């Protein structure tokens, strides 16, 4: 009998991880798979709030949104972090988050707010990166604008990323729609006709295709981030090709521990976490009073004049369908 009780208890413990009894002690946050804070930061959060932090990172923004939709009635997580400008439209449509405004929101982030249920945590820019050494050696002038890239002499040097399978790829697609309106399909037709390559993911484009960074690939122009040049000497980004991407956090509707999720959002906006974001996640803090690392200040500060896409104008399904037909 004792044995039976013991094994029953074990089964219950295994089965009940994260349910009833622990609800008040743990906070579960769904994050994208690039999420990172340090062990020390986790310890600080747990000590200050008394919650044990559990993070789950099942994939990119699209996976997160689907997870939220599918678990709407019985959510797995209390909070979510890592929804970007290009996916939040769906989140708002489906009514997946509860309103929350953090008292820690810095002034510099107020114009990044698109809805009261989304707190901006960090930001970045998706830009065309250039292998400056290659252009110097070959005596060709670097392109400057999106319009330049359309010319065959540059299009054939350009490695892009599939908007269907990658978020920077979609950000760039959205930028071209913002710039060219209804003529965006023609723009892409010109890119393809000129010989632009489409890789399946960021790493594929940056490491296998790009001639900068590792120096192995054949394409001296690549779609990447404004922060990438900080880690790759002899590369730069083209400021007028940048599109702004903001990453948001929110409290999940019907969450078991909404206070915990709020505490997590507050924590992500503290000075210490904001200052560590460039090193841990390769993004920029939303708090502009926090200093960037030195090498970022030299070669990878935000462009300052990016293409801004309004989340409300994004027609994800329609654009991707049309894009698929172009190839």
């Amino acid at each position: 009998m004792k044995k039976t009780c013991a094994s029953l208890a074990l089964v219950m413990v295994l089965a009940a991880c994260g349910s009833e009894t622990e609800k008040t002690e743990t906070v579960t946050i769904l994050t994208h798979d690039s999420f990172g804070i340090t062990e020390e930061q986790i310890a600080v959060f747990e000590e200050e709030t008394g919650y044990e932090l559990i993070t789950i990172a099942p994939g990119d923004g699209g996976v997160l949104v689907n997870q939220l939709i599918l678990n709407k009635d019985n959510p797995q997580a209390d909070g979510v972090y890592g929804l970007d400008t290009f996916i939040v439209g769906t989140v708002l449509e489906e009514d997946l988050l509860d309103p929350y405004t953090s008292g820690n929101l810095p002034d510099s982030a107020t114009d990044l707010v698109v809805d009261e249920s989304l707190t901006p945590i960090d930001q970045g820019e998706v830009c065309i990166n250039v292998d400056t050494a290659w252009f110097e050696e070959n005596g060709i002038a670097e392109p400057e604008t999106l319009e330049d890239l359309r010319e065959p002499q540059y299009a054939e040097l350009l490695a892009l990323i599939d908007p269907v399978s990658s978020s920077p790829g979609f950000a760039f697609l959205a930028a071209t729609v913002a710039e060219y309106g209804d003529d965006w399909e023609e723009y892409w037709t010109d890119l393809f006709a000129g010989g632009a390559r489409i890789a399946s993911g960021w790493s594929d484009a940056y490491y296998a295709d790009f001639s900068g960074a590792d120096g192995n690939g054949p394409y001296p122009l690549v779609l990447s981030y404004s922060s990438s040049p900080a880690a790759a000497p002899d590369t730069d980004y083209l400021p007028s090709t940048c599109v702004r991407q903001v990453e948001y956090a929110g409290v999940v509707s019907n969450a078991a521990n909404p206070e915990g999720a709020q505490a997590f959002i507050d924590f992500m906006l503290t000075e210490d976490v904001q200052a560590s974001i460039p090193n841990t996640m390769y993004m920029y803090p939303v708090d502009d009073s926090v200093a960037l690392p030195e090498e970022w200040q030299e070669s990878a500060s935000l462009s300052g004049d990016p293409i801004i896409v309004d989340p409300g104008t994004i027609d994800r399904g329609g654009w991707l369908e049309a894009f698929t037909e172009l190839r």
Partner: protein
Amino acid sequence: MRLWKSAWSAAIIIPAAFLAIFFLYPTATMLWRGIWDGGLDLGGVGNVLAESRTWKVVWQTVLQAALGTAGAILLGVPSAYILYRVRFPFQKVARAAATIPFVLPTVVVGVAFRALLGRGGPLEFLGLDQTVTAVVIALTYFNYAVVVRTVGTMWQTLDPRSAQAARTLGASPSRAFLTVTLPQLAPAIASAGAIVFLFCSTSYGLVRTLGSPGYGTLETEIWRETTAMLDTRTAAVLSILQVVIVILTLIVSEKLSSRTAGRLNLRSHHVSPIGKSDAPAAVFTGLVLVVLITSPIISLVARSLTVDGEWSLKNYRLLATSGQGFSGGSSVLEAIGNSLRIGLVATLISLAIGVPLALVLSRQVRGPLRTGQSFLSGAILLPLGVSAVTVGFGFSIALDSPPLDLRNSPLLIPIAQAVVALPLVVRSLTPTLSSIAPGRREAAATLGASPWRVLATIDGPFLVRGIGVAIGFAYATSLGEFGATSFLARPDTQTLPVMIVRLLGRPGGDNYGMAMAGAVILAILAAGIMAAAEAARKDPQ
């Protein structure tokens, strides 16, 4: 006797329940969501089926998988002979080398192939970059080991005397092979072929990394619909098409193996020293191993040992850190520890479920029991043919309330990996077990042996021989598993393949170098476990 009967029932019920709870139920829940919207929504299903694009995708999937399977069988069967039926120095090393591709994460294989075939690569002149051919070669590369292992272990147990008899009666070596040996191998080839076909038809990483030849495959379309288009309905319909393909594959495989599978009088293990007549197969195998199997690995190893164009161990030294811009996650060393630990649990689960199942499936039964047996034998292959994204989302919506709220449980990943490894465990055991002539068991029983004793003395030795390979497969599959694991990943249980892929997705040369070093270590671990599991097995007397 009563104990024997209840043990036998448990051997059926427990695996069936395991599959039902951890595979069929989550998958079915996910598919049901796709076609049920307050009522059965057959209109939506019809719309997807009416699109010509859907059928192009189906065709692309089947074509690529069929070519990949054909490639793996054509290269794998001669290699199975050389690596298992004859004896030569350094054979174990060659066997281990043949296994490595299977355990590399698909993304790493994709990157290695692009480095060879892409613009600027040493094989660029072939013009294969971003073609169906490149995908097929990579699929062949990846699945070669499945054919070699499954067919090789079977081949060792074939009694050579029937082929020798044919030769004595004047048959040429090729005729003796085609008319005597090949039919005897057919069950193993059909079994391996079915597994390879299913692997190929659900391959995601390879297809995506190696470019986009025409339309995508069902697997890439399911990912696209779920994660980019946020259209789980279309994804569900495509998943159902995948299931239909799995079932057709199983029917074909079953037909092929049962048509030819006479019960063979298996004796213990037959190997002969390598001879002159083995030369063509030996040269062929050597070429496959050197050209196809090792060259991408060599380029991978070379890349892991290079920093800024110079030889260096720096990438390996960095493995104790979590990398640049990655300070939140565990270090690669910790990920290795996680992988080994999770893999051990997954292997134990898949053996606990798989061994009884293999014994049940290999017994000769008649009537309705026979139907039940084929059904079960097919059902365990389903996990190979259903999209990881469907299963992953299924886990999170189906196993979400007590008593089965496993969503945040540390057991979730080992269970998911065990589900994926189970088909390989069972399929690597059954061909050998089921070819034991039933007469031997009956004879033993007639002579007064209890069922337990029959099991121990007749099945036992064959089981022992197969189990090393089964353990190796299970552990290696678990170590290399990416799809389901990444979907369920938590930072404290990050495995090596997930870590490698995430490092690949981070800027900075150090991260890339660490990913390459991690991939090399993953390959060494998996090949080492395979080799050790095989060396530890005892051959029956």
